[in-house]
């Protein structure tokens, strides 16, 4: 027997499956069972851009400490895909476990001597039990979930309850699933006992946290934030935002008496049209959004400039994926930062929000509509595939019932009637945000002609250079106003005075917290600043100048946030050291720890010499 990893509530299990084999829901059920045992999990789907037949992986990190990031490595591999066998076996940590279908004999060369093998004749059991080939495939998944539960000491009743919740209304499906579950459970108890030293023990560490994917949370945030119009065009990884919005609207936005909808969802013919619909709706006073990914943002460029210049509220969810071009459409990146910050031709700057997890995404989604109407401009919510499409364990959602929507500076019919001066592009109170009127407000006052061409403070067409500059300057001042309205960065001080800082944002938050603990254990103390929005508030530049140097951790090749920092905060580039991860997988704590400690050790050595 090789050395065997022993661990309770702290390990990584990876499922290697074939896309379209029905494994996804079984794997998720397994993960949720661990969570129901009170043990925190972090799950990641790694899937191809295809519907059926290609390899997919599902990773479950079981973590009593509740680390939400990928750890890296793998303690137990459920190898269900012959196509990827060799690669999968190679990725198991020494002393780890291989769980596989032992129905067919395999040559010894296919195994590793430093990995513990747990074989179960899944196909044989299925063929014996089921006649229908489809059932043989589907129940195979549930059978291994049963077996794994037994291996890890997950209570059978906990899993059974999950099956009941999922198939509750469909009696026949329910019974056959429970039968399959028990089959697997009983087999493992009888034949596999003692083969696995990875265990799940009941815990209270999950607390009242919830498990949800970012796109689902974003859509719920849109419902809470008062969005009524959504226009979109299908693209991975953003499609599920629109789908989830439809789901939540069916639940919360159907008039109880008339059954009519308090929402409108348009699947547009392309992303240009989708953003056009959003801009038309925003111009006319509805809270509207679109959800897309990099290629869609590329198509929307002209319209985004119009919305910036004509000052029209709009909310755009960019669920970032690997680019450029079609790039790695089902892998994660943070590589649209510059594309969105300066979207469109001419001088433009846009407000970006960087949520760290689904909970914050829910809040930022709701907030984005207030910001869009207050600032009368497009707001980008910068998700990425990791947050958007993976289930995250996060704090429960909260809502303050006394909250009212900020509809921004809307001049009413009564104000117009009372003779209040209306200049569509007139800054009346110094915040550089003008008043707007909605179509149909007043019979004879407040109408104006919206256009992308330059015009004076009263919306009258003008090609006069001074008039144009006046307006562009006001737009710059409006961006200054935005600084005070966007979420502030989050500062975390190290336990000991630090000479170095770290800046990070978005989904990097998950591994960062964990990396900091490891770095601290190695005696490396760093203060951190999590950036939550662009424009950067003054705290950001203050932070950078307070340290010898600051690491900027990003999930793209070109250090896009760093460029934005250098450019917008007039920072000496030498102050900022990039830590970049962009292979399409979420950045891990191990990666960050290694990259930073390596740099700091070099620095220490240089200083000593």
């Amino acid at each position: 027997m090789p050395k065997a990893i022993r661990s309770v509530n702290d390990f990584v299990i990876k499922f290697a499956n074939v896309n379209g084999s029905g494994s996804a829901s079984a794997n998720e059920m397994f993960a949720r069972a661990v969570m129901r045992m009170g043990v925190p999990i972090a799950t990641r789907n790694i899937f191809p851009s295809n519907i059926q037949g290609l390899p997919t992986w599902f990773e479950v990190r079981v973590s009593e400490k509740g680390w939400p990031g990928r750890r890296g490595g793998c303690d137990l591999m459920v190898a269900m895909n012959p196509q990827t066998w060799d690669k999968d076996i190679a990725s198991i940590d020494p002393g780890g476990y291989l769980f596989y279908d032992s129905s067919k004999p395999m040559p010894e060369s296919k195994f590793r001597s430093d990995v513990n093998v747990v074989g179960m004749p899944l196909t044989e059991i299925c063929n014996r039990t089921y006649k229908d080939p489809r059932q043989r495939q589907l129940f195979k998944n549930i059978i291994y979930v049963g077996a794994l539960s037994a291996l890890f000491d997950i209570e059978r009743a906990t899993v059974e309850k999950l099956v009941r919740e999922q198939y509750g209304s469909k009696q026949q499906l329910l019974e056959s699933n429970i039968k399959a579950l028990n089959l697997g459970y009983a087999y493992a108890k009888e034949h596999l006992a003692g083969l696995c030293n990875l265990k799940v023990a009941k815990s209270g560490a999950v607390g009242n946290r919830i498990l949800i994917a970012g796109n689902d949370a974003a859509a719920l945030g849109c419902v809470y934030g008062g969005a009524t119009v959504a226009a979109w065009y299908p693209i991975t990884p953003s499609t599920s935002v629109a789908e989830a919005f439809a789901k939540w609207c069916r639940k919360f936005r159907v008039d109880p008496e008339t059954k009519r909808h308090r929402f409108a969802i348009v699947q547009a013919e392309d992303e240009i049209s989708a953003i056009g619909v959003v801009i038309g709706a925003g111009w006319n006073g509805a809270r509207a959004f679109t959800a897309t990914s990099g290629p869609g943002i590329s198509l929307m460029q002209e319209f985004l400039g119009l919305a910036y210049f004509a000052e029209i509220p709009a909310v755009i969810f960019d669920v970032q994926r690997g680019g450029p071009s079609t790039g790695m459409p089902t892998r994660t990146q943070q590589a649209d930062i510059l594309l969105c910050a300066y979207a469109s031709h001419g001088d433009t700057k846009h407000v970006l929000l960087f949520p760290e997890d689904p909970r914050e995404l829910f809040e930022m989604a709701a907030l984005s509509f207030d910001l869009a109407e207050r600032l009368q401009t497009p707001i980008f919510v910068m998700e990425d595939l990791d947050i958007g499409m993976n289930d995250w364990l996060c704090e429960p959602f909260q809502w303050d019932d006394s909250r009212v929507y900020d509809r921004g500076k809307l001049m009413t019919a009564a104000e117009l009637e009372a003779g209040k001066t209306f200049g569509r592009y007139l800054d009346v109170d110094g915040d550089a945000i003008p008043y707007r009127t909605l179509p149909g407000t007043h019979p004879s006052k407040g109408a104006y002609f919206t256009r992308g061409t330059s015009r004076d403070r009263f919306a009258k067409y003008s090609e006069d250079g001074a008039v144009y500059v006046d307006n562009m300057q006001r737009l710059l001042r409006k961006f200054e106003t935005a600084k005070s309205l966007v979420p502030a960065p989050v500062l975390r001080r190290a336990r000991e005075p630090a000479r170095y800082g770290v800046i990070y944002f978005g989904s990097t938050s998950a591994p960062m917290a964990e990396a900091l603990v490891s770095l601290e254990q190695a005696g490396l103390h760093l203060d951190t600043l999590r950036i939550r929005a662009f424009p950067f508030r003054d705290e950001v530049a203050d932070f950078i100048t307070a340290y010898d140097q600051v690491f900027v951790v990003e999930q793209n090749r070109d250090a896009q946030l760093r460029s934005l920092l250098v450019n917008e905060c007039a920072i000496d580039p030498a102050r900022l050291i990039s830590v970049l991860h962009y292979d399409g997988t979420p950045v891990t704590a191990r990666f960050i720890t290694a990259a930073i400690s390596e740099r700091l050790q070099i620095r220490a050595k240089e200083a000593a010499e």
Partner: protein
Amino acid sequence: MTYLPKPKFHHPALPKNALGFTHRDYEGSISTLCAGCGHDSISAAVIQACFELNLQPHRLAKLSGIGCSSKTPDYFLGQSHGFNSVHGRMPSVLTGANLANRELIYLGVSGDGDSASIGLGQFMHCVRRGVNMLYITENNGVYGLTKGQFSATADRGSRSKAGGINNDSPLDLVGLALLIGATFVARSFSGDKTQLVPLIMAGLSHNGPAFIDVISPCVAFNNHPGSTKSFEYVREHNEAVNRLDFMDPRQPITVDYEPGTTAEVTLHDGSKLRLAKLHADYDPHDRIAAMTYMQQRASAGELVTGLIYMEPEARDMHATLNTVDVPLNGLSEKQLCPGSAALEKVNASLR
């Protein structure tokens, strides 16, 4: 410039409509188009139609793309909100505006370049989605604003001012509108106010996607011999299928047509359209027959004008989407936000 600056005061003798508005109340800024441009005549027809329809100007929203034609919404209905968007993308902006507030009347104004070239996709999808609007293309067969390049509606063999010949097949927007489900389809000529004004009135009153293709000669780049969109050419080849008389229920009916040659159509709001039939066999309620007829006349070199097709019982996008009767932009937090108790239940379902 076609309009001279006008004094602000209203002449007491100006005729008023039922709302007490004069013509002036429907006018806009002074046009900056070339003198004699067909587009200005269309603006005048829009003003006339809205005046006669007794529309409250502020209850109409006018949207356009980019082009000389798309500039025109600035030149009529100065009390209405307008949106001069981007080239070829007005249909999506109009769709969004309409979703936000179903109670306003939406007028989309576009050009042949704007709708048949860069915006062809948006035009088609907006129509097939059933957006309640009147969509007018001011069709001159050229890109006026960029100085005379052929547009996609230019006829094969037509000659540009610079002497080039168009060898590509033309796109027929009327044919496309019929094909993709517009429920009101008409064609007219900017120089034929008698025909155009009632068509615009009927189009604005229609409850669904209404489309009027208005041939509108560009005097600067497409009004020479060899052009098939010139004043001369259109006058010679015009073949009107019917004459229209639009009767608002609030107005006494003053014109009467010869019995036997008229047909009455009631619109959803109770107003009536009276068609003086020039062709006894032309039935504007038969989409397939209309399509066939268009093709036949086109191959005979004739340009059919008039009301080509109409579905009186048309439904719009809001019916398909089953949205509430009230405008979405007027819903309150109470109607939109499920609140904290509901959120607690959501949380519970995610554990």
